[in-house]
């Protein structure tokens, strides 16, 4: 079953974008390269009303945020484990992630719910934005929740602050440009 931004239903422009061949960044990331510049080359060729489809191993929130500033709305679907498909549409970017399950906090971090817990993506935020966004999220949570953080690096500075609030890093998975941390209370 498709997951992702399903709560809001697909936007009207999605029908046209479905015809476009996806640009799969997963092999690029697997080779340890940053696909950002190649993505930007593709974006440069897209005019008003145009679209781009990207396959990624995670919900690429920083990219969605960056392209929203360049006028792209986006719609994401989780197709399988470690496989997200994001549709971008050049229309002014007014409705990026609006109406979807994704919430954007004060620091600009996106959070959404998946089966394994409440996810928060703090990549590309300026320090101490990631730390503040994570702490702000957990301070309002039920201690039984699991929080999954998507970070650019292992946030060592966060460890003392988590401990002060009774939270800890349960496990870590480090991938290129996506260090995932599972935070638990107790």
């Amino acid at each position, binding site marked *: 079953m498709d997951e992702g931004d399903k709560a809001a239903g697909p936007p009207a422009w999605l029908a046209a974008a479905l015809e476009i061949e996806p640009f799969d960044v997963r092999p690029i990331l697997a080779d340890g390269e940053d696909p950002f510049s190649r993505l930007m080359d593709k974006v440069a060729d897209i005019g008003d009303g145009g679209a781009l489809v990207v396959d990624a191993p995670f919900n690429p929130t920083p990219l969605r945020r960056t392209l929203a500033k360049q006028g792209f709305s986006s719609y994401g679907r989780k197709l399988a484990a470690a496989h997200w498909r994001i549709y971008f549409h050049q229309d002014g970017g007014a409705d990026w992630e609006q109406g979807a399950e994704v919430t954007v906090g004060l620091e600009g971090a996106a959070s959404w719910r998946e089966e394994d817990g409440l996810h928060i993506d703090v990549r590309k935020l300026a320090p101490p934005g990631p730390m503040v966004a994570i702490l702000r999220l957990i301070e309002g949570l039920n201690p039984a929740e699991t929080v999954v953080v998507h970070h650019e690096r292992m946030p060592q500075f966060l460890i003392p602050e988590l*401990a002060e609030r009774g939270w800890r890093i349960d496990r870590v998975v480090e991938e290129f440009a996506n260090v995932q941390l599972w935070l638990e209370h107790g």
Partner: protein
Amino acid sequence: MFAGAFLTGAADRLLPPSVPYRFFVTALVLHAVAWGLLLVGADEVVGFQGGLGMVLAALHLVTLGVLAMTAIGAAFQLLPVATGRQLGPLWACRLTWWLLATGTAVLAYGMATATTAALHGGATLVVAGLMVALVLLAGTLAGVKTLPGVVRHAWVALGALVLLATLGLLLAVDFSTGWLPDHQAAAIAHAVLGGYGFMGNLALGFSYVLVPMFVLGGAVPDAVGKRTAALAALALVVGVVAILEGAGPVVALAGLVGLVAVAEHLRALAASIRSRMKKRLETFFRLLIPAWAVLPASLLAGIALALGAPSERLAPLWGLLLVFGWLLTFVTGILQRIMPFLASMHSGITGGKPALLSKLAAGWPLALHAALHGLALLALAVGILTDTVWPVRIGAACGLAGALALIAFAVELARRYRAHRQANPPL
């Protein structure tokens, strides 16, 4: 995890605790020794205009032994974590400490006793240590694309360090050869490069990361950091050249540019602090806030000197404001926050239950240190302004007692950390 994913090696970027803490412990010990020397040489403080003796030795124990020692230890640990780049081999970090610690002790002995061999040998060891640190830090900073404000201030600091070390060596040799055309101008330029250039820029740059992080406030905009770094660099270059050329009004102009940079810096930090998540400011702010107030005061005193104000009282007062009032107050404030912070970080990274910051830091030694440090500064200022030795003696005694309180804090921190590790062994 998808195929081909690789570890980013983040754990490697956290140095073994013995590396940063050897710098911090040395800084705490030399801090006490510096105040002790000042107590012994109190009658030299009033009207001090430079020259070998106890005051110069105490001054260098503070600048090299406390300020540079703490800054380098903290930079070795914090910069790689903040920038995500490797620092360099551990042996080079340890070599930096050996050279800097030994060199500072030998140099201070040479200055206190006017022993030429110790003066030259100590200066050479210190410069060698600083250059190893410079290579390590420059290697980490090269290619960093994030944190532009921090990185640019750090580059200005490293540039100042090269000039500062060169002038320091020349000055050490000049005590026995007298070949420098104007020893005093070179000494003032050396002090400006050290106080505002190297340490000042490290303090400004690191504050952009540390202060918002400690208060959980908003990030300082990159544009502010870029602007303050550019202004600081401009003020430094113009100021140092003008000092060496004896152009007082130009030095004052450079001081004004420095004031603008400081105003911009403090405004940005104030905005971050106002936006903080933490309701109460932590206790180390009782040192940071006065330090921030003294920084512009030191620049104003320097500007007055550059414009020809009588130097008999103002010159030692400027030194007091710059080294003890601004930098030592700021650095001891940061030191008492990052020591337990790093201890907590290290306790959590090895898989054991992290030690709580609030449980690691003992409150009473810090309150005692802050009170005694404040009294020491006030008494020294009174002694300098009234040409009276006894307030200087009282001030140095208070400073020494405050330094011992800070050592007591560190000893208690180590005891609590060990107790936590025994109760919660690493997994």
